[in-house]
């Protein structure tokens, strides 16, 4: 029991990081994912990485596992057949989908609306109503009707069942009763009830979220069971932790109950890891930039904690599940550049994917991509591996970018620079949504860049936003797997409240939060967390009466019992409303939801501090290359990152190559290698 292991299952690659608890050494490994039988690739990766780290599966202590299995299932619509039991008269809830069509005007002409995840054929309405807002039963259930519905659905071949009844958030009794009946009639079928998955008002989102849970459940159960079995066969006694969309962890057992919480399991790891690394460096407020082949995820970290949201979006579907507030934009290395009819240059969201990939892969792609633009400008030096290929086809990249140059009447270098400027601008816009629009000034934040392509573009973005220092952590290509190792056991417990300050006092809120804390405690105990390690955070989701925002205001629970009651919450809410929107209102405060997050800390990894050596980086310089930056060509040194030592300083321009990514240091910037092995970039000359 000497090692911890983080494993991140992506669509193409599975990344593994092994941490040696004795020597604090980190080993990185990458294997191909096996989408047809996902657990196979994971086990293979774990076995290979443990061997590489000179240990064995039986020596593993803690396992941290993030996966895109649920994300892909939603995007590719490959989940299970779900039966839906809902209130009679509301059977079409998912089909009607709140009537939404996309903008602008005439957006409906091009809208592609996928079929509901629970087919109308498998949706049954049942009698029984609960009144609102008092939550009283106004019509009782008809048990015979429910039994018939369950039998019919089971006979039809559904693989899981969702129970989502109108107003169940006010009173879950009907849903619980239906679940009991299902347990009697069809004990094999997994069942979720909406009042447990999302105990909040809003029937469409609650139903959708619960259906997604059941859509993913049979596959996730099978997957995690296979994994447990395979690891047991390899004599593993390690504790399995599964990474949630909000960056927290839960047990394999809990994940099988609530797979909807895994929808953004992958991207959350990178953000949590970035937050940890930046905090360790003393930069607790950072923006994060995770740029891959087809898309970029950005987020904001304040005081070492990633911002979270309760709206999670995967493809067309937006549902209620807590996740790290990741804003995704279709900008990646494979994004295709096209000149529009009006003459404007668009980059992405279309992507060349992995096959044929950018023109420079030489696999037949002939459309210009962001990677091709980087190649043309000399930012990807010879010898760098991309997409697993040693030799890049520079001529193909040049020819592809030349098509844009021809249409715009510019040189090929200018066209390539324009492609980079536009894709950087797209990422800048995404970063603005998580910062400026939320009332944060990016100049007060650092920037952490990772993912395969992030370190190549981050310097330009830091420059546009004036967000420094820019931090490129070690192993930027496996940041998610690293981040998993830094996560805590975590779950949230919430309740719809919908009370205004005129009707309740602080004591009432206090009591409700205590109830939620008790629920959180039970869960942490069931997850095996020692009571002394429990930590709780309390939130009131506030708005002015009848507004639709829910601003999550952190609550100091003891203060609720005092004289001031809710005044502190209201004060915090108003100042945040004012900061973000520039005005406050003379209207009562409404608390829409109360929420408690229960945490149990795990020690997955320790970040090593190293001695600083001298500033001279010349031992790591391996080559030089002509690189083009905004109109000028510079003779630019190339460094091997593995040879750089803490304390080394580099003046821009420079290129730093690594196993899994290339760092571009722009002119008028300088970099230092810090004591944790990060590359820290700032504007201006080095000290």
């Amino acid at each position: 029991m000497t090692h911890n292991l983080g494993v991140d299952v992506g669509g193409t690659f599975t990344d593994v990081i092994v941490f040696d608890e004795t020597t604090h050494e980190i080993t990185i490994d990458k294997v191909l994912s096996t989408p047809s039988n996902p657990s196979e690739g994971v086990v293979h990766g774990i076995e290979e990485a443990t061997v590489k780290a000179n240990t064995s599966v039986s020596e593993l202590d803690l396992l941290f596992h993030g996966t895109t299995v649920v994300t892909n299932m939603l995007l590719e619509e490959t989940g299970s057949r779900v039966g839906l039991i809902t209130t009679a008269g509301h059977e079409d809830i998912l089909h009607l989908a709140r009537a939404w069509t996309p903008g602008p005007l005439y957006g409906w002409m091009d809208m592609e609306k996928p079929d509901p995840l629970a087919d109308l054929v498998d949706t049954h309405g049942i009698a029984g109503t609960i009144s609102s807002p008092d939550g009283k039963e106004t019509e009782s259930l008809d048990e015979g009707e429910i039994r018939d519905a369950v039998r019919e659905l089971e006979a039809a071949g559904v693989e899981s069942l969702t129970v989502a009844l109108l107003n169940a958030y006010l009173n879950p009794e009907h849903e619980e009763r239906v679940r009991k009946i299902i347990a009697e009639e069809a004990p094999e079928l997994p069942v979720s009830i909406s009042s447990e998955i999302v105990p909040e008002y809003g029937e469409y989102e609650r139903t959708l979220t619960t259906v997604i849970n059941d859509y993913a459940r049979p596959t996730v159960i099978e997957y995690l069971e296979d994994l447990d079995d395979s690891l047991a066969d390899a004599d593993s006694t390690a504790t399995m932790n599964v990474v949630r969309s909000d960056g927290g962890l839960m047990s394999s057992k809990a994940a099988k109950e609530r797979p909807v919480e895994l929808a953004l399991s992958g991207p959350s790891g990178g953000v949590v890891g970035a937050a940890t690394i930046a905090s360790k460096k003393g930069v607790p407020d950072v923006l994060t930039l995770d740029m891959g082949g087809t898309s970029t995820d950005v987020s904001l970290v304040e005081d070492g904690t990633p911002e979270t949201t309760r709206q999670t979006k995967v493809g067309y579907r937006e549902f209620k599940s807590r996740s790290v507030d990741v804003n995704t934009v279709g900008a990646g290395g494979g994004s295709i550049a096209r000149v529009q009819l009006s003459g404007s240059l668009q980059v992405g969201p279309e992507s060349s994917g992995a096959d044929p990939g950018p023109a420079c892969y030489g696999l037949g792609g002939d459309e210009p991509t962001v990677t091709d633009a980087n190649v043309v400008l000399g930012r990807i030096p010879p010898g760098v591996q991309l997409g697993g290929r040693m030799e890049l086809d520079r001529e193909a990249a040049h020819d592809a970018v030349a098509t844009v140059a021809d249409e715009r009447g510019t040189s090929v270098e200018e066209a390539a620079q324009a492609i980079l400027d536009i894709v950087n601008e797209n990422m800048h816009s995404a970063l603005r949504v998580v910062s400026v629009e939320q009332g944060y000034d990016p100049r007060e934040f650092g920037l952490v860049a990772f993912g395969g392509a992030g370190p190549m573009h981050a310097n330009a973005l830091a420059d546009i936003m004036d967000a420094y220092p820019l931090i490129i952590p070690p192993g930027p290509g496996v940041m998610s797997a690293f981040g998993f190792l830094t996560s805590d056991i975590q779950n949230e417990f919430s309740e719809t409240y919908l009370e205004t300050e005129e009707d309740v006092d602080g004591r009432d809120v206090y009591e409700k939060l205590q109830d939620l804390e008790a629920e959180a405690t039970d869960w942490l105990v069931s997850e095996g967390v020692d009571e002394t390690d429990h930590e709780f955070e309390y939130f009131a989701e506030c708005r002015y009466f009848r507004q639709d925002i829910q601003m999550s205001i952190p609550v100091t629970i003891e203060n609720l019992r005092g004289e001031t009651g809710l005044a502190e919450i209201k004060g915090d809410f108003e100042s945040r409303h004012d900061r973000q929107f520039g005005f406050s209102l003379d209207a009562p405060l409404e608390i829409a939801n109360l929420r408690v997050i229960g945490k149990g800390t795990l020690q997955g990894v320790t970040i090593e501090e190293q001695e600083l050596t001298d500033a001279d980086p010349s031992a790591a310089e391996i080559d030089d290359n002509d690189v083009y930056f905004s109109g000028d060509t510079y003779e630019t040194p190339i460094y091997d990152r593995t040879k750089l030592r803490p304390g080394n300083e580099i003046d821009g321009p420079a290129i730093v190559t690594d196993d899994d990514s290339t760092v571009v240091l722009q002119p008028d910037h300088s970099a230092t290698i810090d004591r944790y092995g990060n590359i820290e970039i700032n504007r201006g000359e080095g000290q």
Partner: protein
Amino acid sequence: MSSSTPAFVGEHDIDQTTLDIIESTLSNTRDEMDRVVETTAISPVIREQSDQFPLIADAEGRMVMGQFGSAIDTILANSPFEREDLEDGDVIATNDPYMCAGAVSHTPDMLLLRPIFYEDDLVGFSSQWGNLMDVGGKTPGSMPVQASTIFEEGMRLPPVKLYKQGEIDSELLRSFAHNTRLPEHAEADIKALAAGTKAAETRVHELCDRFGKETYVEACDAILDRTRNGMVDLIHEFIPEGERYTFEDYVDDDGMGNGPIKLHLEIYREGETVYLDWTGTDEQVPGTVNFLLNEKMFKMFTGVFLIMAFDPLLTFNDGYYDLFEVTLPEGSVIQPEFPASLGNRLPLMARQFDVLQATFSKLIDGFSVAGSYGTSPNLVYAGTDSDGNEFQMLEILYGGIPARPGGDGLDGHSWWPLFRTVPAEYQEAYYPLTIDEYSTRADTGGAGEFRGGHGITKIYTFEEDGAITFQDDRAHTYPWGVDGGKHAQTSEKKLIRADGTEAELPSKVENVAVEARDKLVFSTAGGGGLGDPLEREAAVVAEEVERGLLTETAARSDFGVVLTENGTVDEAVTDDQRDEIRANRDGLQKFDYGPLPDDETLEARIADERRTFENRNN
């Protein structure tokens, strides 16, 4: 055409990439303005039914980004101040359609306009408008069905400075809000709109900081020019020169017994100019359905249609203003004269889109869209509950989206972008009613190779005495089918009293008293079908029967699809059935308007329906 080429056309001294960046930033800013308003507004009608009405204009008042065209000139002309009197931090407010040439088309829409200054120079404007819950007048919600002048439709603010140099004129706001039924809502929502315009100001300042003021101003010109160029290409490619194309359709009635109301549009091209002529459209009507159509807005709608159909990435703006020449006959139902009432302009607004689509369907080869559910139906339920608290609910409903080129219409979706239904759980929590049903109306979408979307049925049980006001349309006329596709079914309204008696209601009623336990069954129309229904894949028809979206009867009679006992397609019988239908029909029509009687019969029927309804309720 006679008018000269706009000044922004020509060479632009700006780096193309900088231009792309400024264009995309302004486009994102438009979205941000919406997000700010949606999150901070109080009224569900703004929040949940997200109205997308932001606009960013240049210093000349030309819309650079937005989708409704700019009426800034008219607003300033109708204000007591000159352009030079505008100062940093001012915000102009108006909700009078006649003071902004219909840029907002009924009184509940409050429009805010903020001049944007940079280094003491005017560099542009931002504007945002939203539908307030109430602005006073004779009915809750301020959208009376039966009013003959705009004076009955609430408090009107002419263009005045609501904010002066950043300070809100709270006495003005208070005076306005005081005249509404929901003053707190009005104040909050107006502040939310102002915050939306402020967001644009901040972004424009940042662009000027980053690229310089001159570059920003040059970029605005270049963006207008780019769009104009793109539109010139679209016009040449898709609009044939020489031929004249016309289309006619009707709005049912004005809610006071007058109808049907004809819309007539003719489109033709000469050179680069496209002429859109509404001559032949009926005169204004006594009721509130008159729609003061803003000329620039209509040009924008036309351009947006072409862009969305053929080049969805082109930016919409006033750049193509001079390429369209529009005739709006004075005194017609789309250009009514002051003080005609305008409260319920949605049926005509929606029909104007239908007619535009239909005319384009005629003139553009291989591109057709059918008719839609015909308005944005809405319902107001208001009263005083047993505890003495006043309540007022306003909700927009949806119907069948027409069949589209290459695809079915959507069931119960919104033709207007980004609207969402208000959750039943929200309605039940905040208002005294229950939602007993919210469902798809099977068989109501027009049959076709591509099926029109179905309408919906929503059933409300009222829990307190009160009154309801609602408007819908397409109760007498049918959303048409196109290219062999069938017309859709009409809308219907029924009140089921607590004692079990039932009454059909017209599609537009005002202040109908309801009592606790009364039920309202609100059914909207479907959308028309496209293409020959006999060409629709039989297996898809069978699936829709299984899902309850079509009845077996309709599958057989409309699509010629006959099912076996276990619900699969009976291939042989289906072939026979389809052959038989084919043999007995008189070819395929370009447009199927449904079984409409002649104009006079329809007119009499509409007048009679109203008379019967009034007699019953008085």
